[in-house]
């Protein structure tokens, strides 16, 4: 059964028709990636799922429940957490405080402590820097923090927006290794990436977006071999 399902979702920015009937599904335990060029609607799709943007048409179903009517903060409690584009850490809060904000909707102290230990194990560097202001860390560290913060909500589905953006190639590999590790622990991941190459390597399935529409979908391996994908997004002739 699909954990997260979008059916014919239309979303607008003012009069601009940004999503023109997106339908996709993410099964439990999967890594699904959305690839596509600039302005294809990848980030918009994530914003719509997390409730920051309300669709005008269509529905979004999480574990059998239509979640269109919920506010962003309620969706976090329902199990949707986001790692926003450009990291979006709270620059003037310490690392530990940032992580605490991630667990904002939860009240189980013991569980929060357990998850804190988990993310500190996942990213030992964050533990070293727990009292440092988030804004003073490097881009890679901020990406780790944003990811760890999202995990603190103990999400069913983790939405990740361009985790590779602005990072050195070495770091991109590290981050993607971590994404796989998180997935192995049982968290379902919907990954938006411009860097289609790495994204398709770790993903189970993928969707290709173009100007607000899904033009192609399938297994990651199939997509990697697809001619149009190779030409348009993998830079192969």
């Amino acid at each position, binding site marked *: 059964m699909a954990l997260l399902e979008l059916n014919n979702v239309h979303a607008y920015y003012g009069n601009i028709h940004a999503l023109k009937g997106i339908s996709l599904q993410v099964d439990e335990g999967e890594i699904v990636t959305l690839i596509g060029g600039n302005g294809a609607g990848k980030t918009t799709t994530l914003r719509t799922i997390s409730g920051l943007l309300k669709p005008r048409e269509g529905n979004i179903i999480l574990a059998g429940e239509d979640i269109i009517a919920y506010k962003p903060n309620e969706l976090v409690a329902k199990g949707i957490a*986001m790692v926003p584009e450009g990291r979006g850490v709270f620059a*003037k809060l310490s690392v530990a405080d940032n992580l605490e904000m991630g667990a904002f909707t939860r009240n189980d102290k013991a569980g929060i402590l357990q998850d804190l230990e988990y993310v500190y194990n996942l990213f030992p560097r964050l533990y070293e820097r727990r009292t440092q202001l988030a804004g003073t860390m490097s881009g*890679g560290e901020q990406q780790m923090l944003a990811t760890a913060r999202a995990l603190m909500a103990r999400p069913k589905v983790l939405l990740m927006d361009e985790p590779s953006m602005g990072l050195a190639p070495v770091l991109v590999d590290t981050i993607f290794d971590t994404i796989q590790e998180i997935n192995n622990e049982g968290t379902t991941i919907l990954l938006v990436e411009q860097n289609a190459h790495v994204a398709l390597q770790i993903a189970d399935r993928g969707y290709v977006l173009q100007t607000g529409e899904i033009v192609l979908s399938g297994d990651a391996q199939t997509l990697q071999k697809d001619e149009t994908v190779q030409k348009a997004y993998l830079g192969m002739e």
Partner: protein
Amino acid sequence: MNTTQHTINWKAFLKYGLLAGLVIVYVSAVGMLEAFNEREVIRDVVTLGQLLIVGAPFFISLIITQHLEKDAGNIPLPARGLIIGAIASIPPVVLVGLTQVINFRPILVNINRGMVEVLTFENESLLVGSLILAAVMTVAGLAGSSITLLPAKPRRALLIGLIWVLGVGVMSELVTGVLSEHFSRDFERSLFERDTLKATTAAGLFLITTLIALGWGYSNDDIKKQYRALPTSSQQIARGSGFLLLGLFLIVLPQIVGSALSETLSIVGLFMLMGLGLNIAIGLAGLLDLGYVTNYAVGAYVMAVMTSTGALGLAEKTGVDFLNFWIVLPISVIAAMITGFIFAVPVLRMRGDYLAIATLGFGEIIRILALSDWLAPIIGGAQGVLFIPNPTIDHIVLWRGGQIIAALLIGHILRAFIKPDWQPSDNIYVATITKFAAYSAMGLVISVAASEIVRAIFFSSLDLSGQAIVRGPQQIYYVILGAAILALTVSVRLNNSRTGRQWMAIREDEDVAAAMGISTARAKLLAFTISAATGGLAGGILAVKLGTVFPTSFNLLVSINVLSLIIIGGMGSIPGIILGALFLLGLPELLREFEEFRLLLYGALLVAMMLLRPEGLWPSAVRRRELADDDSVSTAPAVGD
């Protein structure tokens, strides 16, 4: 172009020199120089006007010359000040010369003979006078830069001594007032001559303050080191006794400084209360609220209408007569909070500049409503509400209140001595409350027993059945002090709470905060509502302090003042708010004798502040970390990006 480091950038010298010179020309042209010259700072030695002439080149070269490394090439430090001082003297000398050629009177009335006399040090010959002026300013520039050659500690001590002498000299009337109230008239006369500092006194004061500052500067490090070496419990005791001393000082303060300064302190206190409230909206949640006066007005009018004994009062209208200050004060606070909530609802979706403009509008709406004929039957319109009685307090309440406060203090001290490691329960809340209750109960037994025994033995005739009336600034001060302590405690707790961090997250990035599961709407409503509370508190106290409430008290300037004191003190910093209130509200009250130039000085101080300490007087820890070079950040190996 020659790019060796010996290149001298004359432009920089010209810029700062002319800046100092033009300041003097400006204060001369607006008449400030002549007016200030009437006041002698030190008897027969220097007037305030002359101090201005010396001060401008002195301070500019004190601040600037060290930073001219790149521009000054190989010119030694003192010479840099000399050059700046000399350049600074050009504009005023030119001004003196021009007065002989052009008649400024029709346009700038203040450029006249009197002004020229001050500038030329009342010399008969303009040429000699101008030369003296140029010499004085050049020497002042030289002095300013030479001081920077001293090592940091003596330099600081010297400047502190200078500030003390000038401060006492300028505020001499206040100082003599306080002195003659507490000491004999002769003692005051031996130090001051007709309310002006004597030269000998000034020299003595300078010597004493400089030496003390010097001693303190050298021992300060040792004291800090010793303090850190103490065990935690002793540190706690040291800190506790520090607070106790501060508390005692604050309690006796109005008796020391007299009624006039107590009035100033009360105003500072009221604005500090509002600052603490607005800080929640601006400093923590980042909501730029320019209509804070709304809450002040609501608090004041609620207090006025509910307690007034006049025609507009509830007592007169409905016959309800049990309402007094103490009952209505919480109502004022709640009314302000409700107003804050109501006004927050329509602006929830606004951000930044738009929010500022909308709230600015609310402030005006309240003022116009208060003035309107429509509400006049209830709140008096332009006539305001009169006959607000002074609060009264039963002696017995004062007595019991004192016992309870003493009990809490004793309980707190006991905690450090009796079983400091006691853990009554695993649940932190239960443990905290149990410990608090147990120690406070012990404190209560001790304080009640001790005070009743003392009363029975020494003050057996003390009558506790009567009432005291809280009247005049020296007594209202205590009400404000109590309110301030309450507001401070709540503020500090909020600052370090989950709620506080939730606001900070919204300030940093509203979208991300929402995506973290924070209900931004609820958090913003809460911020506006809680922020309004202290405004209502301050308003309620203002009403009884004045005894009357008029719409004119609630203008835009109040909102601006509260906002400025937060910015001056350092955004989001609680000690900063206290300093900011003292600086912005206290200083102008003390400088009231300068009357017409008060706002000018106030503006100049603000500009100087923003240039010299943009992070505020006492920045919050976060901002300080942000602006300082943090070694732990720069030396740690960064994961590249």
